[in-house]
């Protein structure tokens, strides 16, 4: 066997994404992931097939779902002997799962697999308070009745309130929006620029839906056939009317909404795919993760700029050699701050250690079919959505076209990947 082998994206499938607490409110992560897998299986005729591995994960995960992906595989039409693994890297989960499978394919440890993710903000786990949890654990450990009673007696009324998951950085106590508001202010990102980017995201996604672009990337679920966050009729004017929720400029319109959904990507070794009548869309050329020290004041969501710099250096490429850019829109200002950072001589020199800035990009090549502001952002599902979308876009542009995926994640992390059309 010659190494490394070439991992390719064969295709993808996702559920339409739905605003949290609405159309998928009664479905859980396993249900959504199963639906996404079954749609992929149906599209590529994989019913009863044993794949080498399925990798996926969720950010908001119940402790009972320790084997979420394996359980979804068992509920899917794939052969029950298909192994699965759960991964988690906050909003980088979906892309990291794709990279995991692609790397196994490169190393000859797998020929075909699925990477992706799912999140249901509607069916989020509710935990008991830390005080109650510790008291219950102590009572459980107790060997005698008095010990048990003493443990239970430590429970206070305040302990009984349930605890919902929050998107808060444990080390700063700031929500992701609050962190990003600092970045937005530091980089001087204007309200107008954010609203323009948000409006463009909706317009691009709506146009792609109307053109049938998602017909072979999405399978309807529970009566939903399009992303429900999408507002085709929104405009800069309508977005300008919203009041800020983070800082002075970040609104519900230029921040992503809590969303439910699942997305998966079919990956295979190039020769294997061709031999099995599965025409590849794009190669996974390279990938990189990076982290910043947000606890020391770094911009929480700009870690991908570091990853991009390393990946481009390794590939001997400039940022402008890329034909299509897919920058996950956690917030409009995250994308705009990333572009500003790439253009900043000082940031590229002092933070990324580069001699020259990465430079400006052609904005008409950015998120050409919309991104998370319009589609919604079921955390772990976003990577799969982007990879499948980009692979298809690159394939349409023709062999050799390269595309960059950049996804920021909680904890000051970023995952990026480079794809090339087959």
């Amino acid at each position, binding site marked *: 066997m010659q190494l490394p082998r070439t991992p390719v994206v064969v295709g993808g499938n996702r559920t339409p994404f739905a605003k949290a607490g609405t159309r998928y*409110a*009664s*479905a*859980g992560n*396993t*249900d959504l992931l*199963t*639906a996404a897998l*079954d749609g992929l299986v149906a599209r590529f005729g994989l019913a009863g097939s044993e794949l080498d591995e399925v990798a996926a994960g969720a950010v908001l995960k119940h402790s009972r779902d320790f084997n979420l992906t394996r359980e979804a595989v*068992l*509920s*899917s*039409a794939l052969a*029950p002997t298909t192994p699965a693994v759960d991964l988690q890297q906050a909003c980088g989960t979906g892309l990291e799962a794709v990279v995991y499978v692609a790397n196994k394919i490169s190393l000859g440890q797998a020929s075909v697999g699925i990477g992706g993710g799912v999140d249901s903000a509607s069916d989020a786990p509710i935990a008991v308070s830390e005080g109650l949890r510790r008291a219950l654990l102590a009572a459980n450990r107790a060997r005698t009745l008095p010990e048990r009673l003493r443990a239970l007696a430590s429970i206070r009324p305040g302990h009984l309130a349930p605890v919902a998951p929050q998107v808060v950085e444990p080390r700063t106590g700031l929500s992701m929006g609050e962190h990003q508001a600092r970045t937005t202010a530091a980089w001087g990102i204007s309200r107008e620029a954010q609203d323009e980017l948000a409006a463009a995201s909706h317009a691009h996604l709506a146009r792609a839906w109307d053109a049938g672009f998602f017909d072979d990337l999405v399978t*309807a*679920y*529970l*009566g939903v056939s399009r992303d429900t966050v999408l507002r085709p009729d929104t405009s800069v004017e309508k977005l300008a009317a919203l009041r800020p929720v983070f800082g002075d400029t970040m609104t519900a319109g230029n921040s992503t909404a809590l969303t439910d959904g699942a997305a998966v990507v079919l990956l295979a070794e190039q020769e294997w795919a061709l031999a099995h009548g599965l025409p590849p869309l794009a190669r996974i050329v390279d990938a990189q993760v990076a982290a910043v020290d947000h606890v020391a004041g770094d911009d929480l969501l700009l870690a991908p700029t570091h990853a991009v710099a390393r990946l481009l250096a390794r590939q001997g490429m400039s940022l402008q050699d890329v034909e299509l850019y897919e920058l996950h829109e956690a917030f409009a200002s995250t994308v705009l701050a990333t572009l500003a950072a790439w253009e900043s001589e000082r940031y590229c020199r002092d933070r990324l250690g580069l001699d020259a800035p990465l430079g400006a990009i052609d904005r008409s090549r950015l998120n050409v079919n919309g991104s998370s502001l319009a589609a919604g952002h079921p955390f772990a599902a976003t990577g799969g959505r982007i990879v499948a979308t980009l692979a298809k876009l690159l394939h349409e542009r023709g062999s050799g076209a390269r595309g960059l995926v950049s996804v920021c994640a909680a904890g000051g992390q970023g995952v990026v990947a480079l794809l090339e059309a087959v």
Partner: protein
Amino acid sequence: MDADVDLLAGMPRLGPLFARAALPSLHRGPARLPRSTAVVTGVRQDVARLADYDRVCGFRVRDAVPPTWLHVLTFPLHVHLLSGPESTIRLAGVVHVSNRMRLHRPVAAGEVLDVSVRAGNLRPHRRGALLDMVGEVRRGDEPVWEGVSTYLAPGARVAGEPEEVARPAVEPRSPIAQWRLPAGLGRDYRRVSGDPNPIHTNVLAARAFGFARPIIHGMWTHARLLAALDARLPAAYAVDVDFLRPVLLPSTVGAWWQAERGGWSAAVTSRDGSRAHLVARVRT
């Protein structure tokens, strides 16, 4: 023919109906069943209740609904027919002895359906009479599901020689799965199925019918077994079950399934597999 169709404006509510269906029949003459077919058209499925049903029975929340859910959609019409003046047999007190259903094609949660049920095939049994409730679910002209629920009405009088009803013999075998059924399961299934029969939720009611504790609905056990087969089930199939012994709540039961030509044989058993509560056969 039209005279025999009882077209209802909507699905009857089960609470009040069941109260009537629970009144013991004072009828002493030969048993009689309604002749009409109860029909409700344009039934929209309640996706939230479906998802709740899925969770209670162990199904994934899928676009394609379980065939036992379609039975649940027909159930109010069972109660309607067996509580009306034309029927000398009351639903409360009958024993669900077997069930057959066929799903002709996958039915989506979003489909609007026409639901009908008729009662028939009244026949003598050594303990009373057997009858069939024959349900059908259609999408326009297309039948998508059929089900036959066979009930035993103890003490009902029907002329003729009781026919011998063969009950399947089940060999003891080791269960593949073990399920713990909590005491509140009857309440959960009542919520999702709408079947308010108190023998499933109330100890006194259960004792009145000779059970030490409440028993779980047979159709829950049926559904739970299909849920265990999950993705191993084909897209369209027929499934026949015999209810052999009630399952008391709470309890732990076993279950096994085995692929066979053209489908599956399966059973819900005692924990050790020695006695069967329900046996099932799935055919494509």
